[in-house]
């Protein structure tokens, strides 16, 4: 092996340090952090301008979101940690790392066999829709191979030394590498083979283990290294540091299920995760207190030494984020903030604030002590302040945004109201990315320009005040003492074994046992008639997964009152039993889709996919135009499959009668009452949704006795609401010429050519029109609905004149024609209640409630109405017959029961 003095040094006392590998991983970390940050910024911009980088499947929101998280995790932090490991492990173990060649092999595989191919694959649609586990399985195998190599490279040197004398940083590094090697396959591969809720209990563990067993111990270990090395004083208490270490490794693996509070995972597992989360918060107080006590009297050094300042800021944020995490695991807090931007603020504080700040502190410390590296304290100082300002802005902004979202979701406000309320927070978040990106660019400058570090380390003003020799206080244990407490030498090792045992226990308690419980619950509650997904739906599911839909739309109605009110019956464990892997999701930008079946017609779904703003004017969802051949009414097979999947969500729940007061499945009939209660409690956490009234009640009358002035004012407000909510389909004018209208069947009603009775208009606004794209708007405040009704009346009202009455002969002929051709559907009195009406969706028009213009009615008779049961009569009726029928059916309209004008006339 060629060893050049500049690259590494070797003698009997000091182990060889692989400076080349340190620099390689350090430079790669810089490249990766800039790319990963750019992915994140692009994702953030898309919240404000959904079509930014649109029109391309590769650059879509979901795929770039995958690249952002995995890039930060493996590309940035992975390389930064590896650089530090190459610097620190020889110092901690007093042994060189196992092999330089292995190191270069690992460098190549880590970056060019894992991160970059992982990005390419995810951008081209090969991914896994699981938080922090987005790499596809082929890359997972590379990751696992890398972790095996990490053990060979970094764990073996420790094992060759004396573990009983190992400094706490070494313990953290050992724990991080060995435990993550065990946790990664469980969290990344198992959910591919264990479906639904059962798989979620495994993937939930990894969501937290990825942070708790990889990022956290490495960052805490680095802090324990950098603090004494920079201040020249040993840490406050090594004893406390070890207590903190063991508590972290014993308790952290028990946290993961707190991502699925109020889910169908057994409540006992959820409660266990909550207990462990709070306990962990207490442990972090211990760890950070010990670290801050280690900095006592070093304020000047923290201010002057940028590496130390980054580390100090990182551990302060570690304390904040851990206490925040413990709090948000508690049910009352979780109920409010889970799925909101609060969680995004939390995760950025953890990964950017805590982990990245400490990693930067570690990198800078390494850099100024690594021969051949360039280091600029000035650029590093700029990096610190820019990153701090950006992070502070982002954290405060998203935390407040999350609280606003949580409050709105808890209320009866419409979903779009929460989207609109979030816009300012999303824009501020995007702005906060400017100083963050600038901070990372300064970091790149700090590590690539400036004075080259030579044989002597780069010194900052603070370094000059360190008198290392005087501050070190070697402690010798007397021989008799050593013999007396020899058992303690193995105590740490034994505790280590216990730690691995505890780690295994965590999987038993939070994954394997809930799995068994869930299997039993599912066997008891899954209806025998549950319909499996079709091939088309399964293909659609794969598209849903690859586009990252699960990162904006959850598929888990939680057992909370407002989730149930807003989205429908609580999700049962058996409902996702065919889902490999589960896509419950961890965030709601859009509404939950677990009960999407029968909510919208296919044409609406297709139009919405093509361009969401066609049908939801204020939507911020990106369009998926590459799933279409140029227009929403020309979908590709992929689009049809995706819509088929969306329409299947919750189908079995409907078949099983969820939401009605009845037993959940036929199989429960064979169970005892106690077993039924136990099964029910197991999958809804004891939450009794039957106590929540789900019926919206009849439509309230939206008309009132308004004065002309009030009516005009209402209509004016209604116009604004109409543009915000209805214009996507009906156009601003209500004349239904919007682009989205072209691909909807039936076409949205042209409100300028029909007049709806006030009862009917109230009903349509309140309940929607089944079989059409017209949704129910009952979630809007009553005042808004009244304003909308006033506006709709205003745009249709001027078009009408009192219809001329029919002569006796015309009446006889028209009655005969109507009875023969129309009454079957429209009913004898034109009330839309003919014999066939019940089977039709949308239901036939009630002429009693709806008055068309003569022109529109004639056109409908002549050409039919596509998307409804109304066929064209052009070849069956003569023009005069059609004209007569138009006049006849208009005579059904009951103007008297509609207007306030009539009431006013009566009062006069």
């Amino acid at each position, binding site marked *: 092996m060629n060893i050049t003095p500049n690259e590494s*040094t070797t*003698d009997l*006392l*000091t182990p060889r*340090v692989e400076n080349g590998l340190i620099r390689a991983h350090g430079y790669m970390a810089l490249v990766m952090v800039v790319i990963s940050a750019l992915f994140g910024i692009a994702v953030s911009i898309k919240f404000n301008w959904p079509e930014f980088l649109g029109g391309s499947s590769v650059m879509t929101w979901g795929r770039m979101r995958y690249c952002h998280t995995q890039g930060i995790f493996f590309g940035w932090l992975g390389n930064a940690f590896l650089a530090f490991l190459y610097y620190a492990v020889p*110092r*901690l173990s*007093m042994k060189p790392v196992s092999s330089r060649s292995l190191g270069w092999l690992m460098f190549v595989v880590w970056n060019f066999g894992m991160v970059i191919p992982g990005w390419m694959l995810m951008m081209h649609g090969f991914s896994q829709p699981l938080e922090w586990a987005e790499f596809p399985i082929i890359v997972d195998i590379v990751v696992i191979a890398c972790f095996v190599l990490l053990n060979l490279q970094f764990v073996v040197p420790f094992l060759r030394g004396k573990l009983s*004398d*190992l*400094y*706490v*940083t070494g313990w953290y590094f050992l724990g991080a590498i060995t435990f993550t090697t065990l946790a990664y396959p469980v969290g990344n591969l198992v959910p591919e083979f264990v479906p639904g809720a059962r798989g979620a209990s495994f993937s939930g563990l990894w969501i937290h283990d990825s942070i708790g067993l990889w990022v956290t111990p490495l960052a805490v270990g680095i802090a324990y290294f950098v603090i*004494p*090395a920079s201040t*020249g*004083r*040993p*840490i406050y*208490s*090594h*004893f406390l*540091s*070890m*207590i903190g270490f*063991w*508590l972290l490794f*014993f*308790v952290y693996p*028990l946290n993961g299920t707190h991502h699925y509070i109020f889910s169908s995972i057994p409540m*006992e597992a959820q*409660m*266990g995760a909550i*207990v*462990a989360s709070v*306990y962990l918060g207490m442990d972090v107080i211990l760890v950070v207190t010990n670290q801050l006590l280690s900095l006592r009297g070093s304020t000047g050094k923290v201010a002057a030494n940028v590496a130390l300042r980054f580390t100090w800021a990182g551990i302060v944020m570690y304390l904040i984020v851990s206490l925040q995490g413990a709090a948000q695991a508690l049910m009352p807090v979780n109920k409010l903030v889970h799925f909101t931007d609060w969680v995004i603020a939390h995760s950025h504080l953890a990964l950017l604030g805590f982990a990245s700040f400490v990693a930067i502190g570690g990198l800078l410390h390494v850099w100024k*002590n690594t021969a051949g590296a360039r280091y600029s304290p000035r650029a590093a100082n700029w990096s610190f302040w820019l990153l701090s300002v950006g992070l502070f802005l982002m954290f405060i902004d998203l935390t407040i945004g999350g609280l606003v979202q949580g409050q709105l979701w808890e209320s009866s406000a419409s979903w779009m109201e929460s989207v609109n309320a979030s816009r300012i927070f999303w824009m501020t978040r995007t702005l906060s990315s400017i100083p963050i990106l600038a901070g990372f660019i300064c970091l790149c400058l700090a590590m690539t320009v400036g004075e080259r570090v030579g*044989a*002597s*380390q780069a010194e900052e003003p603070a370094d000059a005040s360190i008198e*290392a*020799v005087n*501050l*070190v*206080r*070697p*402690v010798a*244990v007397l021989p008799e*003492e*050593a013999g007396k*407490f020899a058992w*303690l030498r193995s*105590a740490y090792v034994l*505790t280590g074994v216990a730690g691995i045992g*505890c780690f295994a*226990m*965590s999987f038993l*308690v*939070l994954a394997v*046992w809930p799995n068994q419980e869930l299997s039993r619950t599912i066997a008891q509650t899954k209806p025998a008639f549950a319909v499996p997904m079709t091939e088309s739906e399964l293909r659609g599911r794969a598209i849903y997964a690859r586009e990252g839909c699960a990162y904006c739309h959850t598929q888990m109605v939680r057992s909370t009152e407002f989730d149930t009110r807003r989205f429908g019956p609580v999700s049962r464990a058996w409902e996702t039993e065919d889902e490999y892997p589960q896509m419950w999701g961890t965030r709601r930008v859009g509404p939950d889709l677990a009960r999407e079946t029968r909510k919208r017609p296919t044409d609406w779904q297709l139009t919405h996919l093509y361009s969401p703003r066609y049908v939801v004017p204020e939507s911020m969802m990106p369009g998926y135009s590459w799933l279409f051949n140029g227009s929403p009414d020309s979908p590709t097979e992929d689009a049809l499959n995706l819509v088929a999947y969306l329409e299947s969500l919750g189908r079995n729940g409907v078949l099983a009668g969820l939401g009605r007061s009845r037993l959940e499945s036929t199989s429960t009939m064979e169970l005892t009452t106690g077993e039924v209660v136990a099964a029910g409690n197991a999958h809804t956490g004891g939450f009794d949704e039957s106590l929540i009234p789900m019926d919206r009640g009849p439509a309230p009358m939206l008309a009132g006795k308004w004065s002309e002035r009030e009516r005009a004012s209402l209509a004016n407000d209604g116009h604004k609401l109409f543009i915000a909510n209805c214009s996507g389909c009906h156009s601003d004018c209500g004349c239904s010429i919007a682009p989205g209208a072209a691909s909807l069947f039936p076409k949205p009603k042209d409100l300028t050519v029909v007049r709806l009775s006030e009862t009917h208009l109230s009903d349509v606004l309140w309940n929607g029109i089944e079989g059409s794209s017209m949704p129910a708007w009952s979630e809007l405040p009553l005042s808004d609905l009244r304003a909308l009704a006033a506006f709709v009346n205003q745009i249709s009202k001027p078009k009408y004149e009192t219809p001329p009455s029919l002569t006796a002969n015309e009446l006889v002929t028209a009655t005969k024609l109507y009875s023969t051709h129309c009454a079957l559907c429209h009913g004898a009195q034109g009330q839309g209640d003919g014999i066939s009406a019940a089977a039709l969706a949308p239901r036939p028009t009630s002429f009693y409630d709806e008055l068309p213009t003569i022109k529109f009615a004639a056109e409908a008779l002549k050409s039919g109405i596509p998307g409804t049961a109304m066929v064209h009569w052009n070849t069956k009726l003569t023009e005069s017959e059609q004209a007569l029928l138009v006049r006849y059916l208009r005579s059904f309209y009951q103007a008297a029961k509609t207007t306030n004008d009539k009431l006013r006339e009566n009062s006069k």
Partner: protein
Amino acid sequence: MIVNLIVGGVTLLMLLFVLVWIFFPATRNWFERPKHRFMETERMMDEKHKS
């Protein structure tokens, strides 16, 4: 609840370490020795770099 047992067990284990630390003061040097060894190593490595 099994998690409570684990958390309780871990607490007892750590309490055991604390009791050892309290009632056997002579062990404190042993517990704290790694941090001083670490400082010594750092000093040695720094000197190696400077030389």
